[in-house]
């Protein structure tokens, strides 16, 4: 959109918007909240935060954001979604509310609250493909997982199998779209956001 530094919006209908704005700022990005179609038109990329996906979907429909979001995604706008944001980027969801709509864009099926209720919420180290240094510290809160992906989707992180459970896909990328089951915005480690900021910069070139 602009020729100068790209501006990254954070969808501010509901959720941990502030933490994403802070993480983006610390990854040297220009970031601002976005609630309306005219605000969406002014940003070059978008983060869909953690939160309650049914609420976000509901508000996106009520305030005329769903169609512009789908149009921008189809036109190649870079988007990163964490947790509820991952659900919003999924082409297909399981265990959603009846009629729950998503923005879509990533050819994947995501199971909502797949890791369980809050009592099962957990933290765990995650090997994240393409990030230097230590494993990423994953914070999973009533988190979804990716049940299956299409051919064009790159798997960036999996939670290793433990206690007889299968390994689960928890981070993916398809083109300019990035999604994680976990919340890097809650950890103070901004490498995932920096990864997205680089993706945005590359897309702007």
């Amino acid at each position, binding site marked *: 959109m602009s020729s100068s530094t790209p501006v990254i919006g954070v969808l501010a209908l509901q959720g941990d918007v502030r933490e994403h704005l802070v993480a983006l700022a610390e990854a040297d990005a220009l970031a601002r909240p976005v609630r309306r179609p005219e605000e969406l038109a002014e940003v070059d990329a978008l983060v869909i935060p953690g*939160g*309650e996906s049914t609420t976000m979907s509901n508000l996106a429909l009520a305030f005329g954001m769903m169609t512009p979001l789908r149009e921008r995604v189809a036109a190649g706008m870079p988007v990163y979604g964490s947790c509820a944001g991952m659900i919003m980027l999924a082409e297909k969801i399981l265990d959603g509310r009846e009629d729950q709509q998503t923005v879509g864009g990533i050819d994947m099926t995501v199971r909502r609250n797949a890791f369980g209720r809050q009592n099962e919420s957990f*933290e765990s180290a995650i090997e994240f493909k393409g990030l230097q240094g230590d494993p990423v510290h994953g914070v999973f809160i009533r988190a979804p997982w990716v049940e299956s992906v299409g051919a064009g989707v790159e798997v960036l992180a999996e939670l290793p199998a433990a206690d007889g459970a299968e390994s689960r896909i928890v981070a993916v990328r398809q083109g300019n779209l990035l999604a994680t089951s976990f919340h890097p915005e809650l950890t103070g480690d901004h490498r995932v956001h920096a990864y997205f900021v680089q993706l945005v910069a590359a897309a702007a070139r």
Partner: protein
Amino acid sequence: MSTTPVNTADQPQIGTARVKRGMAEQLKGGVIMDVVNAEQAKIAEDAGAVAVMALERVPADIRKDGGVARMSDPDMIDGIISAVSIPVMAKSRIGHFVEAQVLQALGVDYIDESEVLTPADEVNHSDKWAFTTPFVCGATNLGEALRRIAEGAAMIRSKGEAGTGNVVEAVRHMRQINGDIRRLATLDENELYVAAKNLQAPYELVKEVAQLGKLPVVLFSAGGVATPADAALMMQLGAEGVFVGSGIFKSGDPAKRAAAVVKATTFFDDPKVIADVSRGLGEAMVGINCDTLPESERYANRGW
């Protein structure tokens, strides 16, 4: 020291302060609604609630009926958990850690140690660190908020007079808490020790709040919110989200009012949206003036 060091960082850990507080971060900008059955829970979810609070009677009825108000029936909580996909909270009495243990065993997502129920202990609140399930607690001022956080609360809410439909007490608490935080942020480091003494709160937490300029956990408003404008008022006063109790299901058109409160909470700073969603909502709940409430019926006095 054990001989084989265990790298706990590689083991998945549940019930940490980060996942408890992080859960509340996910609720921000949202509305949590009191519901008494599965049907109401569905209405709340369809309206865009971020969570529901399962309880047997809404506070307005607790006031009317009198008697001892306790934790809800497990069957009723189970019914609500299976009816909706959003988080489900439930209330325990202040200091009744066995009710809290039961709620944790039922798998609720958050426990509200609530003054709306009849306190079980007039001295101690529950030790919330002992639980995997996170707790939200009420507070009327910063000292009270920090005492609850010291006990392990992962989320704080105001203690506005529940069941009155009158937002005045929630406003008082929100102004008090945020005013206390602003005053703390102006103090010299040497002055924080006396501030901690005056607040009757741990020095480390007082120092953290002074540095952050906010609570270390999410702060919601609760008590007396009856209209979309009430919800937006609390958001403009610095609440990070809103609990609505009797205000929705004691009104004329609960589904419509619930959706309107959700929209007004997201667009709390846009009077045009608040005006639009406030049209044709039908009757609001009949309110109670808090200054006619006898001291003994003021829930905010419960907890210390």
